[in-house]
C-alpha cells in the first residue's frame, strides 16, 4: 500500500511474450536486460542479508540453544536446549517470566501513550501551520530541532533537567511553585514512567509533524475553496476535509511510530543506563540486560523471537484492518 507499483510502462513490459516483435537490436541482448535489475539490487540485498536476515536466523537458532559466555567463541557447538529457553521465558510465575511480562505490559502502556501524544501534537501542529502566517517558517525550523538533535545529546539534557537536586523540573515544581513537600525523584521509582514519556514525546512528535505537513500538501486547495463557498467555517473544514484526507497518511504514520516506540532502546538507555527502574523497564532494555548482564544469550534470544512474533502479528492485523477499512470507505 505504501509502495505503489510503478504504472505499467506500456508495451515494453510484455516484450517477453513477443521475442521477435521488439526491433531494439541496439541493446546488448536479452540476458543483460533481464539481469540488470538484479545486479542493481545485489549490493542492497547482500547487505540486508548479512546484517539483518542472517543474524535473525542465527538469533532464532540461538534461542534453542544454551548459550552462555563459555560457548561464545564457538557458539555453533553450544548445547541444544530445545524449548527450555522459551518455557523459562513464558513461565510467568517464575522470576524470569514475571519480569518479562511486566516489562512487556509497561512497554505496551508506554507505546500507547507515546504514540498517541506524538500523533496528537504532530497533527495539531501541522494543521495549525497549514495556512501561512508571520513567523511560520521560523516556527517550523524550531519544531524540527528535537528531530535533528542526536538522541544521546537530547536525552542527556533531559536527564540533567530531571535530576533531583540540581534539575530544572524540581526547581520549578518544588522551589518555585511549592507543589511538593520534598523534591521528588524522577529517574528512579514510579515517576520514571512519566519522565520517559515526556522525553519520548518531545523527541518523537516532530516526525509526526513532518509527515503530516507532507500529507497536507497533497490536499488540493480547490476543495477548501469549494467548502468555503458552501459556507463551511475553518473548524468544519478541518473536521470534514483535512482529517479525512489524512487517513491514508495516518495509517502509515501510526504503524511506523508504533514500531519505533515499541523497539526504542536509545531513550531509556541514555536516560536510565543499563538497568531501568521497573516502572520504565522497556522490553528492549530488558532483553539487553537479560543477554549482556547475565550473559544468558539463549533466553535473551528467545525473548527477542517472541517480541518479533508479537510485532509481526500486530503489524499483520493492523494492515489487514486498515486496508479493509479503506476498501470499505472507497466502495
Amino acid at each position, binding site marked *: 500500500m505504501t509502495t505503489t507499483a510503478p504504472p505499467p510502462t506500456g508495451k515494453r513490459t510484455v516484450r517477453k511474450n513477443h521475442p521477435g516483435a521488439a526491433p531494439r537490436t541496439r541493446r546488448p541482448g536479452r540476458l543483460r536486460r533481464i539481469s540488470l535489475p538484479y545486479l542493481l539490487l545485489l549490493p542492497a540485498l547482500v547487505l540486508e542479508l548479512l546484517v539483518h536476515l542472517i543474524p535473525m536466523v542465527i538469533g532464532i537458532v540461538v534461542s534453542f540453544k544454551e548459550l552462555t559466555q563459555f560457548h561464545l567463541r564457538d557458539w555453533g557447538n553450544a548445547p541444544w536446549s530445545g524449548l527450555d529457553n522459551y518455557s523459562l521465558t513464558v513461565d510467568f510465575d517464575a522470576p524470569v517470566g514475571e519480569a518479562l511480562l511486566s516489562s512487556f505490559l509497561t512497554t505496551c502502556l508506554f507505546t500507547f501513550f507515546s504514540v498517541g501524544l506524538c500523533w496528537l501534537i504532530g497533527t495539531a501542529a501541522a494543521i495549525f501551520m497549514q495556512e501561512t502566517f508571520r513567523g511560520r517558517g521560523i516556527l517550523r525550523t524550531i519544531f524540527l530541532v528535537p528531530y*535533528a538533535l542526536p538522541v544521546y545529546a537530547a536525552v542527556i539534557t533531559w536527564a*540533567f533537567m530531571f535530576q533531583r537536586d540540581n534539575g530544572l523540573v524540581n526547581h520549578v515544581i518544588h522551589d518555585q511553585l511549592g507543589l511538593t513537600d520534598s523534591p521528588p525523584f524522577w529517574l528512579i521509582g514510579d515517576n520514571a514512567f512519566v519522565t520517559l514519556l515526556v522525553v519520548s514525546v518531545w523527541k518523537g512528535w516532530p516526525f509526526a509533524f513532518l509527515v503530516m505537513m507532507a500529507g497536507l500538501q497533497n490536499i488540493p486547495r480547490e476543495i477548501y475553496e469549494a467548502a468555503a463557498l458552501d459556507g463551511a467555517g475553518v473548524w468544519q473544514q478541518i473536521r470534514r476535509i483535512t482529517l479525512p484526507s489524512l487517513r491514508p497518511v495516518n495509517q502509515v504514520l501510526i504503524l511506523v511510530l508504533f514500531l519505533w516506540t515499541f523497539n526504542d532502546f*536509545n531513550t531509556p538507555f541514555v536516560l536510565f543506563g543499563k538497568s531501568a527502574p521497573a516502572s520504565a523497564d522497556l522490553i528492549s532494555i530488558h532483553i539487553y540486560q537479560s543477554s549482556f548482564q547475565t550473559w544468558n544469550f539463549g533466553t535473551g534470544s528467545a525473548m527477542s523471537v517472541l517480541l518479533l512474533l508479537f510485532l509481526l502479528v500486530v503489524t499483520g492485523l493492523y494492515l489487514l484492518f486498515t486496508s479493509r477499512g479503506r476498501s470499505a470507505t472507497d466502495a
Partner: protein
Amino acid sequence: MAPPKSFLVSRLVFLTLLTGFVLLPVYVMISSSLKPLQDVSGKFQWIPSGLTVQPYFDIWKTVPLGDYFMNSLIVAGSATVFSVVIAIFAAYAVSRYSFRGKRVFTVTVLSTQMFPGILFLLPLFLIYVNIGNATGIALFGSRAGLILTYLTFSLPFSIWMLIGYFDSVPRDLDEAAKVDGCGPLGALFRVIVPAAIPGIVAVAVYAFMTAWGEVLFASVMTNDATRTLAVGLQGYSTQNDVYWNQVMAASLVVSLPVVGGFLLLQRYLVTGLTAGAVK
C-alpha cells in the same frame, strides 16, 4: 475569508506552549554549558549568575572528545555515502524495471525496519567475531563493522523514499536519454539522479542522522580506539561528580553538525517526504 477568532486564539496558545516545550532543553543546554561547575551542581538557576566559556575548553581534555568526534564523522560519513549510492541503484531497479521477485524484495527490505535492534545485536556480534577469526578482517570493534551495520539501518527507508521519488521523474526523460545513446546507467546518472536531487539529499540527511545518533550498537561494538560520540559523552561522569556544564557544552558541540546540516537542508527533507513516503 479570515479565520475566526476561536481558531486564531487556539493556534496562538497551542503553538506558544509547544515552542516553549521544544526549546526548554535547548535553553538548558546552552545556559548550563556557560556556567561554572559549582553552579550546575547546586540549585538550578534560570539566569546564570556568572558566565564562563571554560567548559568549552575543558571538554576536549576531560575525555578525548576530538577522537570520538573523528570516529563519528568517519563512521557516519562513510555509512551515508555507501547507503545513498546503494539505495540509488536499488530504487532505480524497482522504479524502472519489472522483474521476478520485485514485490518480495520491497516487502522484505521494508520489513527489516520492524525488527527490534536487540534481535540482531548478539548474532551480528557473533558473525563479526567469526568473520574476524576466519578471514582476519576485523569487523568487531572496528569502524568498518560499525559502518557496515549503520548503512543497513538507513537503507530500507532510503530505498523506499527514492522509489517514490524516482517514480515521480517522468519516464519520457530517461527514455529520451536512452534514445540519445545513454545506457541504463547513463540514463540513471545523467537524467534521473539530477532530477531527484532533493530526494537524494533528504535520504543522505536521514542516513547521516541515523548513524550519528545510534547508541546501542555503538556501545557494544566499539573499543577505546573506535568509540563514537554516542558512547563517549558518558565519560563526563566520574564516581564522585558529573561535570554537567561540560556534558551540556559537549552535547551542544556534537549536535551542531547534524542540527546545522538538517536545518539547512530541511526543505529537501519535506519535499522528499512528500514525493516519497506519502503516497
